[in-house]
C-alpha cells in the first residue's frame, strides 16, 4: 500500500502521511457513499470472503453496506487488516493505492458515524489499586519506600496490563495482605518497629562483577548496592557471603591483595581482606560488621576495591556463575564476587525521632495533653484526604478519631496516631477506586464522571498513584474542567518527575521489559550474556521511551529515532566505540549504527523475542505485527513438530531459516507464516541477545523476504522503512495500548472510532506524545461513563 517512491527519508514519510490523510479527507468529503465501494469489495474481497467458501469466517457478500453499524465487530476487523496492508494477501490483485485508501476511509467513516449515536462508555466498576500503585501511594503519602511484594500477592494481568479491572480481583489473602500491611506500614512509618528482623539480598547468578557498578564509588569493582530501610535506631549486623564453589573454594581466591569494603550511605564501615579475613577455602562465611545506624532508608554497598583497570581478556569468560562451576582454572578464574548480603537488627532498637516519614506525617507535635486532640485531628485528616483522594467528611473524621482514641488509651499520642494511620491504609477508599455516578442518572444513560474521579483517573494514568493536593483542590472546587485548566494540569503532570511511572509501567509491560527479567539465554550459546546486559537493555528501552515523553517527540520516533542511550557494557555489545563508564548517556545512531534505530534495533526487544538458545523469527514477526501494525496473528495449530535437526542435511549445519523451510513448503503453515516469517528473517542479523551478526551456522545471514503487502525487503533497515509507511497505523496501535492502560479496561472494537479520532487530531501535531495523551484525556471514554442496565441489588444495612 505504501507508495514506494515515498520511503526515502523520514521527512518524505511524514509528507506522505499528510498527503494520504488529505486524500482521505477529500474522499470523505466528496461524499463517496459506502455503497459505491460495493464494487471494490466484490472485485477484490468477495472472491474469498463469501458464503460459500467462508474464508476466515468472514462473509462480505452477506453484509449490508448500508448497515455497517450492525456488524461493527466484523467491519472493524476488516479495517484493521486494511490499515495493516495485509489484505488482499500478497500475490492476489489489489486496487491501486487511492482506491484502497478510499475503501478504508469510507468504512471508517461509517463506523465512526454509527458509533456517534451510541458511544462505548462502560463504567469500570470497582477498581482495586494494584501493587505498584499501592506502593507509590504509600510513598507519596508517607515518604516511605516499601517492597509491596512483601505484603501483597501479585496482580493478574489482563489485556497485557496489570492495572486492568478484569485482572484485579479480591481474595481473602489479598484483604489479609492489606490489613497486615496497614499495621506494619504504619509502624514502620512512625518508627515504632523496634523488633529485630533479618533481610537477605541475593545477587543474581548471572550478574557480572568485573567492572564498576553504577552507584558504588569510583575505584571499586563489582559488588552489590542496596537500598535498605532501617526501621529503628540501633545496632545492625551486616554480613556478606562471597561466591564459593560447592566444596567451599573461593572464586578469585588466588587473587592477591583483594579487599572488600562495606559502605553505608557511601561511608566505609569495614574492610575485609580476602585471604586473611575471608578464608580462601571454607564452607561457612562469617563476614560481619556491627554498626550503629539511625533509622531511615540508606544505601548499603558491599564492593571490592579495584586492583587494576586492565581489561579482563580471559578466554574463559565465566559470566554465568553456577555453584557447579567447579573447574576453577588457576590464573584464569575471575575475581572474588559478592553472593549475598544480610542485614539483621536492630539490636536494642529505639524509636527514632527524625525520619522523612515522621516528618511527613507529624505535621504538628502536641506540646501538652490539651493539644493532642486538635493535633491528632489535623494529622489524620490530612493523611486521609490524600489517601481517600477526596475532601474529608465529618463522619470520616469521627471514625479516624475513634481509632485514635483506642490507641491513645492503650498507649501514648503516637500510638493513637498509629491506630488512625492503620485505619487509613486499610480503608476501602484507599485500596479501591470507585466511581459513584450521580443518583439522577437513568440506567443506560451516559454521564460525566465527577471532577474528583477525573483527578484520580489522571493521577493513576500518569503517575500510577493518587492525585496530589493541587489536583484534589481543583477538583473539589469543581474547577478541573474549566477552560484551559485540564490542559494545563495535563501538561504539568506530564512534565512532573512522577511520570517516570508511566514509562516504567506502561512501556515496561507493552514492550515486555518485565518479561526480560526472567529471560535466561543459554550460557553455552551466549557466554557473554549477563545480568548487567539484561539491566542495560531494560534501562535503554526505558530511557528511549522516556525521551519520547520528556521531549514530546513524535511517537513515530519509536520506530526510527536516530539516537539511543548506552553505558559501557551496552556499547560494547552494540559495537559502539569509545564509551566508558557505567552511567548511561545519549549517543547518535548514524553510519553503521543506523541498524539500531528505533525499537527494532533495541537489544531488549531482540531478547524477549528469542528463546533461550536461538532467535525466534516467528516471535519477532508476531511482535511487529501486534505492536506496530496492530494485527495479532492467529494461534498456531496443535501438534506442531519440532524443528528439523540443525545438521540434518549432509552438508553441514542448517541456518534457522533453512530449518523453518516447512513454514513455507507446507500450505497449512504458509497462510500465517508468510505474514510473520519475513519480518523475523529481516531481523536475523540480530542474534538471540541482540548482537549484530553477519553469519549464522557458517553462512551469510539471509535477511530477505516479502511483506504481506508485496514489498520486498532485505534486512532490518528495509523493514523499518516499510513499517514507516504504516506510521498512522502504528500511532493507532500505540494509542490503543495507551487507552487500555489509561482506562483500566480492554479496548474493544467499539472504541476504535475514538482511537481514530485521537490519532487524526494528533497527526496535525506530528503525532507528538502529548497530542496522543491530550486526545485520550479529552475523550469521552476518559471523561464519561454509562450507567449499567442491570437491576439494582438491595442496599446493605449500615450497622
Amino acid at each position, binding site marked *: 500500500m505504501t507508495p514506494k517512491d515515498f520511503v526515502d527519508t523520514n521527512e518524505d514519510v511524514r509528507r506522505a502521511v499528510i498527503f494520504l490523510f488529505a486524500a482521505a479527507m477529500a474522499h470523505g468529503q466528496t461524499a463517496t457513499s459506502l455503497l459505491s465501494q460495493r464494487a471494490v469489495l466484490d472485485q477484490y474481497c468477495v472472491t474469498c470472503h463469501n458464503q460459500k467458501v467462508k474464508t476466515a469466517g468472514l462473509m462480505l457478500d452477506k453484509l449490508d453496506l448500508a448497515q455497517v453499524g450492525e456488524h461493527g465487530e466484523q467491519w472493524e476487523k476488516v479495517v484493521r487488516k486494511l490499515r495493516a496492508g495485509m489484505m488482499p494477501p500478497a500475490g492476489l490483485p489489489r486496487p491501486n493505492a487511492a482506491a484502497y485508501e478510499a475503501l478504508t476511509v469510507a468504512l471508517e467513516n461509517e463506523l465512526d458515524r454509527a458509533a456517534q449515536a451510541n458511544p462505548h462508555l462502560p463504567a469500570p466498576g470497582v477498581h482495586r489499586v494494584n501493587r505498584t500503585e499501592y506502593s507509590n501511594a504509600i510513598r507519596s503519602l508517607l515518604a516511605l519506600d516499601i517492597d509491596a511484594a512483601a505484603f501483597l500477592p501479585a496482580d493478574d494481568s489482563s*489485556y497485557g496490563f496489570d492495572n486492568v479491572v478484569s485482572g484485579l480481583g479480591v481474595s481473602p489473602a489479598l484483604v489479609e495482605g492489606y490489613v497486615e500491611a496497614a499495621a506494619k506500614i504504619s509502624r514502620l512509618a512512625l518508627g515504632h518497629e523496634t*523488633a529485630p528482623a533479618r533481610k537477605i539480598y541475593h545477587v543474581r547468578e548471572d550478574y557480572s562483577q568485573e567492572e564498576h557498578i553504577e552507584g558504588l564509588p569510583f575505584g571499586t569493582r563489582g559488588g552489590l548496592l542496596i537500598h535498605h530501610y532501617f526501621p529503628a535506631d540501633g545496632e545492625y549486623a551486616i554480613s556478606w557471603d562471597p561466591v564459593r564453589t560447592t566444596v567451599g573454594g573461593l572464586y578469585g581466591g588466588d587473587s592477591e591483595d583483594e579487599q572488600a569494603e562495606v559502605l553505608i550511605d557511601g561511608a566505609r564501615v569495614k574492610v575485609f581482606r580476602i585471604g586473611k579475613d575471608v578464608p580462601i577455602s571454607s564452607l561457612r562465611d562469617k563476614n560481619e560488621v556491627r554498626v550503629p545506624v539511625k533509622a531511615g532508608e540508606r544505601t548499603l554497598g558491599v564492593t571490592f576495591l579495584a586492583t587494576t583497570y586492565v581489561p579482563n581478556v580471559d578466554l574463559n569468560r565465566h559470566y*554465568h556463575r553456577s555453584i557447579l562451576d567447579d573447574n576453577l582454572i588457576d590464573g584464569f578464574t575471575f575475581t572474588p564476587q559478592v553472593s549475598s548480603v544480610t542485614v539483621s537488627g536492630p539490636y536494642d532498637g529505639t524509636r527514632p525521632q527524625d525520619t522523612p516519614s515522621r516528618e511527613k506525617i507529624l505535621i504538628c507535635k502536641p506540646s501538652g495533653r490539651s493539644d493532642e486532640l486538635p493535633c491528632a485531628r489535623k494529622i489524620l485528616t490530612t493523611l486521609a484526604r490524600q489517601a481517600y483522594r477526596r475532601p474529608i467528611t465529618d463522619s470520616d473524621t469521627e471514625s479516624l478519631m475513634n481509632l485514635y482514641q483506642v490507641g491513645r488509651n492503650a498507649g501514648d499520642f503516637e500510638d493513637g496516631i498509629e491506630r488512625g494511620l492503620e485505619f487509613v491504609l486499610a480503608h476501602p477508599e484507599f485500596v479501591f477506586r470507585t466511581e459513584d455516578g450521580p443518583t439522577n442518572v437513568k440506567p443506560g444513560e451516559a454521564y460525566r464522571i465527577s471532577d474528583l474521579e477525573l483527578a484520580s483517573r489522571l493521577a493513576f494514568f500518569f503517575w500510577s498513584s493518587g492525585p496530589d493536593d493541587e489536583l484534589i483542590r481543583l477538583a473539589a472546587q469543581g474547577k478541573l474542567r474549566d477552560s484551559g485548566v485540564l490542559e494545563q494540569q495535563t501538561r504539568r503532570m506530564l512534565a512532573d518527575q512522577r511520570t517516570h511511572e508511566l514509562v516504567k509501567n506502561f512501556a*515496561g509491560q507493552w514492550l515486555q521489559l518485565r518479561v526480560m527479567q526472567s529471560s535466561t539465554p543459554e550460557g553455552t550459546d551466549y557466554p557473554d550474556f549477563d545480568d548487567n546486559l539484561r539491566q542495560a537493555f531494560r534501562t535503554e528501552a526505558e530511557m528511549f521511551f522516556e525521551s519520547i515523553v520528556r521531549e514530546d517527540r513524535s511517537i513515530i520516533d519509536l520506530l526510527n529515532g536516530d539516537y539511543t542511550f548506552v553505558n559501557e557494557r551496552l556499547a560494547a555489545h552494540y559495537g559502539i566505540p569509545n564509551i566508558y563508564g557505567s552511567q548511561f548517556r545519549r549517543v547518535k545512531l548514524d553510519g553503521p549504527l543506523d541498524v539500531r534505530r528505533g525499537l527494532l534495533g533495541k537489544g531488549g526487544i531482540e531478547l524477549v523475542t528469542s528463546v533461550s538458545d536461538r532467535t525466534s523469527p516467528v516471535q519477532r514477526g508476531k511482535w511487529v505485527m501486534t505492536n506496530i501494525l496492530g494485527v495479532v496473528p492467529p494461534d498456531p495449530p496443535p501438534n506442531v513438530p519440532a*524443528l528439523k535437526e540443525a545438521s540434518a542435511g549432509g552438508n553441514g549445519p542448517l541456518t534457522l531459516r533453512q530449518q523453518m523451510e516447512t513454514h513455507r513448503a507446507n500450505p497449512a503453515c504458509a497462510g500465517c507464516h508468510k505474514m510473520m516469517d519475513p519480518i523475523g528473517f529481516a531481523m536475523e542479523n540480530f542474534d538471540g541477545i541482540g548482537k549484530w551478526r553477519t553469519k549464522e551456522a557458517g553462512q551469510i545471514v539471509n535477511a530477505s523476504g516479502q511483506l504481506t503487502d508485496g514489498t520486498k525487503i532485505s534486512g532490518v533497515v528495509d523493514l523499518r522503512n516499510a513499517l514507516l509507511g504504516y506510521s498512522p497505523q502504528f500511532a493507532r496501535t500505540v494509542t490503543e495500548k495507551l487507552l487500555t492502560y489509561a482506562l483500566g479496561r480492554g479496548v474493544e472494537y467499539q472504541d476504535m472510532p475514538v482511537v481514530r479520532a485521537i490519532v487524526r487530531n494528533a497527526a496535525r501535531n506530528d503525532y507528538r506524545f502529548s497530542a496522543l495523551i491530550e486526545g485520550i484525556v479529552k475523550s469521552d471514554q476518559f471523561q464519561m461513563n454509562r450507567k449499567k442496565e442491570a437491576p439494582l441489588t438491595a442496599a446493605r444495612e449500615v450497622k
Partner: protein
Amino acid sequence: MIITGKHIPRRAVLRGLGVSLALPLLDSMIPALQPLAKAAAIPKVPRFAGIFSPHGWAPEYWQMPQQGAINEYPFVLKPIEAWREHITVISGLDATSSMPPAGMAGGDHSRSAAVFSGVPPKKTVSDDIYLGTTIDQMIAQKHGQDNALPSIQLGIEDQSSLATCPWGYSCAYVNSVSWSGPTKPLPHEANPQVVFERLFGDGGNAQERQARRQAKTSLLDAVTQEVNRLSNKLPGTDRARLDEYLDDIREIERRMHNVRKASDPTPDAEVPFGMPESFTEHIKLMWDLQTLAFQADITRVSTLMYAHDVSMRSYPESGVTTANHAASHHGAVPKKYEDWAKINRYHIQCLTYFLDKLKATPDGDGNLLDHTLILWASNMGDSNLHSHKDVGHMFIGGANGQHKGGRHIRAEGSTASLLLTALRMCGVEKESLGDSTKPLSLS
C-alpha cells in the same frame, strides 16, 4: 523432633548466633504445641497436601513397564526410592481437563488450574474467568472450617513478571491451581516471610502478637463499617466486588476467633526473610512451613506450586542450566532429553526433605506422614509435544490408614478419577468430577 516446654526468645537467639542463623526453623525454638481441639486424637480426615509441578516428567526416564510392587525406581524417581512403601505411582491417566477444547488448539500451558479441578477452564482473558472448585478447596470447605486457616497456598515463583498469558486464557489459570469457587482463584504465596506471618501473626513475641491481634479486630470492625458505607453509595452492579471484600473480612475475623480459641500455638521462632535464590533453600522453607502448619493444626490443607507453566526458572543445583520450560522442549535430542530428566529428578530430590520432616513429626499415635495424603500432579505427559496424555502422578502418605503405597499402577481414563479418589480419602464423597464418574481404585 523433640518438643520441649522451653523455648528460646528471639532476641537471645539473634544475639547469640548472629547471622549464621539460617532456616529451617529451629526445632528447639518451638514451644510445646497444643492441638486446636483438646480432645483430638487422630483427626477424622487426613491432611491434604497438593503439589503441582508443571510440564510433567521425561517419559523415557520414569515410565515403568511392570505394575505392582517396584523395588527399583526409575531415574527421575530414584531419590524417593527409599520411601516407596509410602508411595503409589500412577501412570496412564490423561489430563483431559488440560487439553484444548474440542475444535480448538493451543493453550497447553495456559490451563494449569485444570489440574486440581478436573474441569477445563473457560477460555477468556477478561474478568469472566470460570473454572470450578479445586479438590483442595472442597476438602477445606468441608473439613477445614474450624482451623485458623482453612487452607494455605504456597508457591516458589512470583508471577508478576509475566505481563501476558497467551492463547486467549487469563493469567489467573496459570498463577493459581487452588480455586475456592469457579471464579475465585486463591493466590499462591512465594515469600516465606509472608507465609510465616500469615500462619503465626507478626510481632516479636507472643504478647506482642496478642496485642496486635486485638488491634486488628478493632481495625476490621472499623473497616467493615466503611465498606458498608461505601457500598451504599455505589450502583448495584458494583456492590458485588465490595461484597466480596466484606466476605473476605468476615473470613479473617472468623479465623482470628479460632486462633483465640486455641491456646497460643505460635512459635517464638525467627521469621524467615527475603526470597532465597536457591530453589533448594526456598522449597525447604516452604516444606518447613507446611509441616509446622499441619503440626500446629493451623491448617489441614495445603497446595504448593513448584513452578508456573512456561517457567523460565533454571535450577543450577540440578546440574542443568537450561531453564524449566526450555528444557521441557528437548526436541528428543538425547543430551537435552537427559537434562530435562535431571531437572525432574532434582525436583523429586527436593521432595524428600518434606517426607523426612513429616515422618519425623509425631502426630497423635503416629506421625504426620501417616496422617497425610500428598497428591503429586502435573498437567503434561510429554512436555516436548505438549501432550496431556499419560501424565505421571503420585499418592504419598498413609492418609489415616487409607493409602498403602509400594506400588505402580497403570490406569486408564481421565485424571479426574484420581481426584475423586483423593477426595474420598479426605472425607469428601463426590459422585462425579469433570468427565469422571468413578474414583480410581488403587487396590
